[in-house]
């Protein structure tokens, strides 16, 4: 019979056991009777020689091997009954644990989706991202297309390698004009990832070169929305940037690459774009490759280095300083988010510890009121092990109930947080609940149950008559000491979390008060594309941009507007080399500046201060002298104290330009960019002086910035319809206020503030409840003593002081310990901080004060209640 059948046939087994033993007794008795005893004597003798009947039965049950399970089930039933008798206790414990376990499950589900889970491609372990970078610093620059082609030809480490470049484009037909995200890819792209198309075929090698027929692969959603999901989509025409493309394939639903759903794929090799034809340009091309079997990443990297050196010899300008580097694709996709997530995991771990300490204290309090119950059970023969097990079963029952509620909380909370927190997480769409998370919740629930249950279980006091047991008071004192130990630990842990949250608040406050160099209020930004009709003609493009600006500027509620290829704090950066002399050295030796190409009106719209000279006007046209404006940082860097007006700079791609003005510096990459060293300076080149070959690439999209009289959101519709113009075929996308752009640029820190703040708040509440509960319990235990004291003349203030001093001692120790620990631990988050040191005395002092005040309030309430006790009532208590 298998053990589980024995378990479920318990009743039959019991009957058989009884029958077997009875048979023995009766045979023995009848043997005795045969030797001449009376029936009664014989039975008695048989019983004596047999031994303790019930004990034998119990030993037989134990020999069966399932007793532990049976008694555990009994314990479980008993635990359910006991907890149902004290629902308040059970509810408090389950809620506390649910918060702790839920927070941990939520963070684990994010770590699982972002870091642990494999990328959704075929055999993702062999996929690598390859990038071109500076040999000296390792700074990634993205591929120059010609370098990519050379690299592709020479490398032997990869089965396949493909380039991918993200670019916006205007999709005008079929359907409404729309600015779409396209991916310009080389022909091996889908086979590198091992992705099969839903319909049609991937690009052929002969379509990936100049002069090939224009073909396109569309994403699933474009197929559904613009072609109705019809299967005759192959061979249909799609118009991108005014050019007709033939659909040859459809990517599968949900296909994502590099943290975004891509809708349109075009072969990069057939595009006629100046930035793809010139080795100097590094237009955001990244390569993805699949390692050959047996080739390690290290081998691939050393080969990449050799190719880099070969190209550097072949093209000293511009490739002298370049090399190539491969890293696992997953690492490339995730970026540097892992330490931040592990920091959060640490924070929720602390929350769970606080929850455990709280519940352990609840159990300890309960254990004192259950002395009688356990003493009776011990007297009836329950072993110490059995009693400890009973208590552990109770705590495990609570922790699993808490885990179940926590699971639901985590499910809802994660969903909410991913929807409402700033979008800072890579792969956030891959965060979903799976078997691994369930396992995590089960394991952490079990561990939690043991952690908070073991101490109360071991300390359960057993004595039938407390008055007779000399050790009873000592044990009680031990439990009270244990309780205050737990409370002190909670306060210390809460202080660590509060300090973390405090430092984030200071960081955010610091960032919000950073002056971006312009007035970010009342600014509306968007990306605008041009009508497909003008796309091939640079002169028309210039005219169209001018018309759009004129239309927007005359819109009611608009005070100013300009266009630029680069939006401040929009997440991008364009860089150029410049030289102070006409004799240009190789670019690797030349300094770098941020390049803006604004139309006139930039200064007035942004309210950037003019330091010297003038800004561009309508007169800076293609045919007039090449003019540039530089920012104050660049002026200081290049000219020191001298006046730069009238001097010249040689700017990469543009040539010799005359400096006509100096303006104040603005933040481009992030508000905290000065944390990474001094700014490199900026060059402003007049938009309407851009040469024809650049003018073409502006047609697919430029940033438009509008200064509004009132709230920027109020004029969105008006501005949009002004942009659209009479033909309504100019796509507009990414409409946002400048304040939103700035908020997004510090999204990760804002998310961290919300999360750390939530966890810190949670820990503050839990710790306050903890100390409140313990002091309340103490006042109740000593109510008779208080009665006696007051009857003997103690004043309420003295009683108040009695309990307050006990509580304040705990607070003092907890806060001191927590302050010391957080002084060390906050170093871990220094990467997230800005403008505040991890050891910032203001913050540390502030949170110590906050915690001390809140905790003192929590002990004041029960202490005051005790002080108001009516002595007569207190004496009659119990």
């Amino acid at each position, binding site marked *: 019979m298998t053990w589980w059948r024995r378990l479920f046939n318990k009743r039959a087994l019991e009957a058989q056991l009884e029958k077997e033993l009875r*048979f023995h007794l009766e045979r*023995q008795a009848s043997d005795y009777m045969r030797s001449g005893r009376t029936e009664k004597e014989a039975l008695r003798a048989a019983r004596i020689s*047999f031994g303790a009947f019930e*004990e*034998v039965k119990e*030993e037989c049950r134990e*020999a069966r091997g399932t007793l532990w399970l049976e008694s555990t089930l009994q314990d479980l039933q008993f635990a359910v009954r006991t907890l149902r008798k004290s629902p308040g206790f059970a509810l408090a414990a389950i809620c506390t644990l649910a918060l702790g376990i839920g927070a941990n499950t939520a963070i684990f589900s994010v770590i699982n989706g972002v870091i642990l889970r494999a990328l959704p491609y075929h055999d993702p372990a062999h996929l690598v991202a390859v990038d071109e970078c500076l040999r000296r610093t390792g700074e990634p620059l993205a591929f120059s297309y010609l370098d990519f082609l050379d690299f592709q030809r020479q490398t032997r480490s990869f089965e396949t390698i493909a380039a991918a470049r993200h670019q916006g484009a205007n999709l005008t037909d079929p359907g409404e004009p729309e600015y779409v995200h396209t991916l310009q890819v080389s022909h091996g792209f889908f086979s590198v990832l091992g992705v099969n198309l839903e319909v049609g075929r991937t690009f052929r090698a002969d379509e990936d070169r100049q002069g090939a027929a224009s073909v396109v692969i569309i994403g699933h959603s474009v197929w559904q929305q613009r072609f109705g999901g019809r299967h005759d989509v192959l061979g249909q025409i799609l118009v991108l940037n005014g050019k007709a493309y033939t659909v040859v394939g459809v990517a599968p639903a949900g296909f994502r690459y590099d943290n975004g759903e891509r809708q349109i794929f075009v072969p990069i090799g057939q595009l006629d774009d100046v930035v793809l034809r010139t080795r100097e340009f590094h237009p955001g091309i990244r390569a993805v490759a699949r390692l050959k079997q047996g080739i390690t990443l290290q081998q691939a990297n050393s080969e990449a280095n050799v190719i880099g050196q070969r190209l550097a010899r072949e093209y000293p300008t511009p490739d002298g300083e370049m090399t190539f580097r491969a890293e696992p694709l997953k690492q490339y996709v995730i970026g540097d988010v892992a330490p931040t997530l592990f920091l959060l995991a640490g924070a929720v771990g602390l929350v769970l510890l606080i929850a455990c300490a709280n519940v352990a204290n609840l159990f300890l309090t309960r254990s004192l009121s259950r002395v009688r119950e356990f003493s009776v059970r011990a007297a009836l023969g329950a072993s110490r092990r059995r009693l400890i097990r009973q208590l552990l079963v109770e705590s495990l029952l609570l922790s699993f109930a808490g885990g179940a509620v926590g699971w639901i909380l985590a499910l809802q909370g994660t969903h909410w947080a991913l929807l409402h927190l700033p979008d800072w997480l890579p792969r956030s769409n891959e965060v979903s609940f799976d078997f691994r998370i369930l396992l995590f919740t089960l394991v952490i629930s079990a561990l939690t149950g043991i952690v908070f249950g073991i101490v109360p279980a071991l300390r359960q006091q057993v004595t039938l008559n407390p008055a007779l047991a000399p050790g009873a008071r000592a044990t009680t004192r031990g439990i009270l000491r244990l309780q205050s130990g737990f409370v002190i630990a909670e306060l210390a842990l809460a202080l660590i979390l509060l300090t973390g949250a405090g430092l984030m608040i200071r960081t955010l406050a610091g960032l919000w008060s950073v002056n971006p160099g312009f007035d970010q209020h009342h600014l509306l930004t968007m990306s605008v594309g041009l009508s497909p009709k003008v796309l091939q003609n640079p002169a028309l493009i210039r005219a169209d941009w001018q018309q759009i600006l004129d239309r927007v500027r005359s819109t009611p509620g608009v005070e100013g507007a300009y266009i630029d290829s680069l939006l401040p704090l929009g997440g991008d950066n364009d860089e150029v080399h410049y030289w102070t002399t006409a004799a240009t050295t190789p670019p690797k030796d030349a300094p770098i500046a941020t390049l803006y190409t604004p139309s006139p009106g930039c200064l007035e719209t942004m309210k950037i201060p003019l330091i010297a000279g003038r800004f561009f006007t309508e007169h800076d046209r293609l045919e007039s002298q090449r003019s540039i404006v530089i920012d104050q940082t660049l002026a200081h860097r290049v000219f020191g104290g001298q006046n730069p007006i009238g001097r010249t700079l040689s700017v990469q791609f543009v040539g010799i330009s005359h400096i006509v003005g100096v303006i104040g510096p603005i933040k481009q990459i992030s508000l905290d960019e000065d944390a990474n060293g001094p700014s490199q300076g900026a060059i402003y080149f007049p938009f309407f002086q851009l040469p024809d070959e650049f003018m073409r690439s502006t047609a697919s999209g430029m940033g438009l910035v509008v200064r509004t009289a009132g709230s920027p959101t109020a004029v969105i519709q008006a501005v949009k319809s002004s942009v659209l113009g009479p033909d309504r075929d100019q796509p507009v996308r990414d409409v946002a206020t400048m304040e939103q752009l700035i908020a997004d640029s510090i999204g990760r820190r804002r998310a961290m503030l919300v999360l750390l703040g939530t966890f810190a708040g949670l820990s503050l509440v839990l710790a306050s409840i903890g100390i409140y509960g313990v002091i309340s319990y103490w006042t109740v235990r000593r109510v008779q003593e208080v009665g006696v004291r007051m009857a003997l003349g103690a004043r309420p203030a003295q009683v108040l002081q009695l309990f307050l001093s006990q509580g304040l001692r705990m607070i003092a120790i907890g806060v001191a310990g927590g302050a010391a620990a957080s002084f060390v631990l906050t170093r871990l988050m220094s990467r997230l901080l800005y403008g505040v040191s991890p050891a910032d005395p203001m913050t540390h002092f502030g949170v110590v004060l906050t915690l001390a005040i809140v905790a003192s309030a929590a002990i004041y309430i029960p202490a005051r209640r005790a002080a108001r006790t009516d002595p007569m009532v207190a004496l009659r208590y119990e």
Partner: protein
Amino acid sequence: MKPSPKSDIPQGTLDLLVLKVAALGPIHGYAIAQRLQQVSREVLQVQQGSLYPALHRLENKGYLAAEWKESETGREAKFYRLTAKGRAQLRSETENWGRLAEAVGLVLRLSEGDLS
């Protein structure tokens, strides 16, 4: 529990004896107890009750198989019989016991002089 006034036999040894008795053919608990006393000429005084946990333990390990059958008095009783696994166990335990008894005997036969 009071200690039994009769000489207890070591745990494990009882198992060996029970297996040996059961090897002679299907037998119920009472008969095993009787047989043990008779065969050992009343030297081994098994507390009769303690026989049953041993039987259940051996059944649980698969050394014994049990079956309810009519006994010699006409009442149903639980009969135990040795399984193949039990027979192997009996063989190896018997060997062990023999070696152990020999070794203990050797040590006990040492004279004082041999120890110094």
